[in-house]
């Protein structure tokens, strides 16, 4: 038997609400089968099985909020030995009493999961609704009734993506993770100018040959170059857990996506070093679409081994990142701008980007960080080999 547990979807998650079972008891499931939808402060996520076997009876019912690590169901495996399963939390759970940002305790309002989801979609505050369910619990119909009727509005605007988490909840989740980062991680910062002229020229030539749907954006080049450079400086890729560095053999890059209604989410693109630019572009598009539609998978929230943030679209020049614990580095890119560039005694105009590395000094030193940025630059000078 294996245990399917409430996973930790990030260093900041303490509990989660089971919203829906996506598989039924008695169903045969495989590694990767979606078993349940879970709501956290960061939104709604689909959780996959980590085992092959038969799903046992549900030990937690939809609507229940349980701490990280709670067994949600058992999975009966062939040749059954007892193995611990569920998403293995890559995050160390701090000992009880360890300094953690105190989250204000708010009284949880009794409401059905469907009501919560609808309220979030309609941006209705549950606190202001009179529930008609058992013990005054708010039901779906209560939410629908309280939402402002908008006759004639339907169809005029595409509905915004439902946000499973309140803005405030997401803010708190980010606050907890970033506070922990600044409290525990001794950051060091390095920056370097990278001449992207060659890479962008090559990309423009490539894109001319491609239909618009297959066009590649510079962000894909940057991500791929980061993955390749990590291959040379692996100590930036992994986790700091139990006072030591765990280098990850796989390169899963967390890709910072700003949500239109505020907040930030950094789901992982898996095995970036092994993807072609075309595949990477597709993976990024898929991730952005699913982030908007609230269809991210739990594993994508937990297993990033490094984060890349590309704030260039906002016009910033340099990004000074805060590491997402327990990761040990974050790579930032600013805006691509034309700049005077001296090389071989000649002055020319080049399209440049400032790449920065924020890294955990417990896990690596500035010398290795510098080697990483140098490798990143080198890979970006031979874009056809990316």
């Amino acid at each position: 038997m294996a245990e399917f547990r409430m996973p930790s979807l990030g260093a900041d998650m303490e509990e989660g609400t089971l919203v829906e079972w996506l598989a039924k008891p008695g169903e045969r499931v495989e590694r990767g089968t979606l078993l349940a939808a879970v709501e956290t402060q960061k939104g709604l996520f689909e959780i996959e099985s980590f085992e092959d076997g038969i799903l046992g009876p549900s030990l937690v019912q939809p609507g229940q909020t349980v701490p990280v690590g709670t067994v949600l169901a058992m999975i009966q495996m062939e040749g059954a030995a007892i193995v611990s399963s569920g998403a293995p939390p890559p995050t160390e759970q701090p000992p009880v009493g360890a300094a953690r940002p105190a989250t204000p305790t708010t009284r949880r309002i009794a409401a059905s999961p469907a009501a919560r989801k609808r309220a979030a979609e309609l941006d209705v505050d549950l606190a202001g609704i009179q529930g008609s369910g058992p013990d005054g619990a708010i039901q779906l119909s209560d939410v629908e009734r309280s939402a402002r009727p908008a006759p004639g509005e339907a169809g005029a605007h595409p509905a915004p993506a439902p946000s499973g988490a309140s803005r405030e909840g997401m803010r708190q989740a980010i606050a907890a993770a970033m506070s922990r980062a600044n409290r525990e991680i001794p950051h060091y910062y390095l920056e370097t100018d990278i001449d992207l002229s060659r890479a962008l020229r090559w990309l423009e030539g490539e894109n001319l040959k491609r239909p618009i749907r297959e066009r590649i954006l510079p962000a894909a080049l940057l991500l791929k170059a980061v993955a390749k450079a990590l291959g040379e400086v692996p100590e930036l890729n992994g986790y700091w857990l139990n006072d030591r560095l765990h280098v990850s053999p796989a390169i899963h890059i967390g890709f910072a996506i700003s949500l239109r209604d505020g907040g930030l989410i950094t789901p992982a693109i898996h095995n970036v070093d092994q993807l072609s630019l075309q595949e990477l572009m597709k993976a990024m598009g898929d991730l952005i679409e699913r982030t908007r539609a609230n269809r991210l998978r739990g594993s994508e929230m937990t297993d990033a081994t490094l984060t890349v943030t590309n704030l260039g679209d906002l016009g910033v020049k340099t990004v000074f990142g805060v590491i997402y614990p327990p990761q040990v580095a974050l790579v930032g890119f600013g805006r691509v701008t034309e700049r005077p560039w001296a090389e071989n005694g000649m002055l020319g105009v080049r399209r440049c980007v400032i790449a920065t590395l924020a890294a955990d000094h417990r896990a690596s030193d500035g010398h290795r960080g510098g080697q990483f940025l140098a490798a990143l630059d080198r890979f970006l000078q031979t874009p056809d080999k990316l």
Partner: protein
Amino acid sequence: MNSIELRDLVYRNLMRIAPECDPSELLPGENIREALDIDSFGFLQVLIGIGEETGIEIPETDYAEVFTMAGMLDYLARRQG
């Protein structure tokens, strides 16, 4: 397509990516991406949508011409003619 139809088509595709925005508030000379906070990914999606409805694929070399509403409409009208 006449200019009103083209404009509505562009609005529709912008709203697909930035659902909370009202593109009709855009000034003709305003930078669309900055005004509606659309990143390079989103902008490519807008152009793909426009391409599917009009058959006009906008190459990257012409991006400078379509950064504003006025530029975009002008460009599409020219290309369709």
